[in-house]
């Protein structure tokens, strides 16, 4: 900066190149990329005690003052959070597997007498619970020769579906879901899966529920 040579004399005349057309940038009109770009330093901040980063507490690397480093820390933490989400999904899978194992263990389909055939009116419905006392089901007879039973649990969010025999559909009032009466398949609204069908058997003029048939579509 300051030396003894005549070229370093601070009283030497002004830099003749100041404000000349080649150096407009120094007075504020030229784009910065005319000059050598600034090297992006790893960490420009010096900690207040002046010691090197290796001797600093660990939190200092997690709460950097430098904006580029802060970007890095933000994305790193996002990645860690996504891996935590990945763990949650895997645990969810394991939970499904455990539930399926439990369901298979206690899977039993007792026979349940619902009603005599002549007790079911044509165009009417009879409610019953199968296989457990809380699993509401409904038996419908849309035609003289057709008896069909479904679980009342809507496959969307488990609301109770209501038979509308004259229209040939089951209607879920929660989200306006509709199921076809003869097949149980979804016709409209949010549900994507068919209603669980109760397998029926005719034992000497009486209707028995003998099984549950679940379907994915």
């Amino acid at each position, binding site marked *: 900066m300051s030396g003894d040579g005549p070229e370093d004399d601070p009283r030497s005349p002004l830099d003749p190149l100041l404000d000349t057309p080649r150096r407009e940038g120094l007075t504020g009109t030229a784009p910065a990329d005319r000059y050598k770009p600034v090297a*992006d330093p*790893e*960490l420009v901040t010096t900690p207040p005690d002046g010691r090197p*980063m290796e001797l600093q507490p660990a939190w200092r*690397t997690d709460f950097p003052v430098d904006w*580029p*480093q802060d*970007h*890095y820390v933000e*994305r*790193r933490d*996002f*990645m*860690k959070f*996504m*891996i935590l*989400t*990945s*763990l949650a*999904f*895997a645990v*969810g*899978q*394991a939970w*499904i*597997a455990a*539930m*399926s194992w439990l369901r*298979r263990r206690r899977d039993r389909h007792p026979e349940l007498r619902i009603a005599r055939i002549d007790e079911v009116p044509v165009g009417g419905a009879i409610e019953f619970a199968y296989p457990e006392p809380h699993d509401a089901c409904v038996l419908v007879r849309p035609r003289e020769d057709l008896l069909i039973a479904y679980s009342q649990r809507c*496959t969307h969010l488990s609301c109770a579906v209501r038979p509308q025999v004259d229209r040939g559909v089951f209607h879920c009032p929660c989200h306006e879901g509709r199921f076809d009466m003869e097949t149980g398949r979804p016709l409209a609204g949010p549900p*994507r*899966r068919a209603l*669980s069908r109760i397998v029926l058997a005719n034992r000497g003029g009486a209707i028995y529920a003998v099984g549950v*048939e*679940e*379907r*994915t*579509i």
Partner: protein
Amino acid sequence: MRRPFSRKQRGTILAGMLAFVMLLVVLQLWLLSATMNAYLGGDESVIWPATVASFLCLLLNGGLLRYLYKLDGTR
């Protein structure tokens, strides 16, 4: 041999890893929703393969996480 990476290089590596992690997480999300649908529909054949696949994804993610910690160590 391990070479220390500059912050810019680490940022690029992190972006690549993050892309992988996002891909795997979306795959796991799809597996979970599809398996749930199959389970509720009574189809149990896909549950164990899907669980194994999901845990494989988690394993890959864990490996990437381990590499991330290593990456942060080389400062």
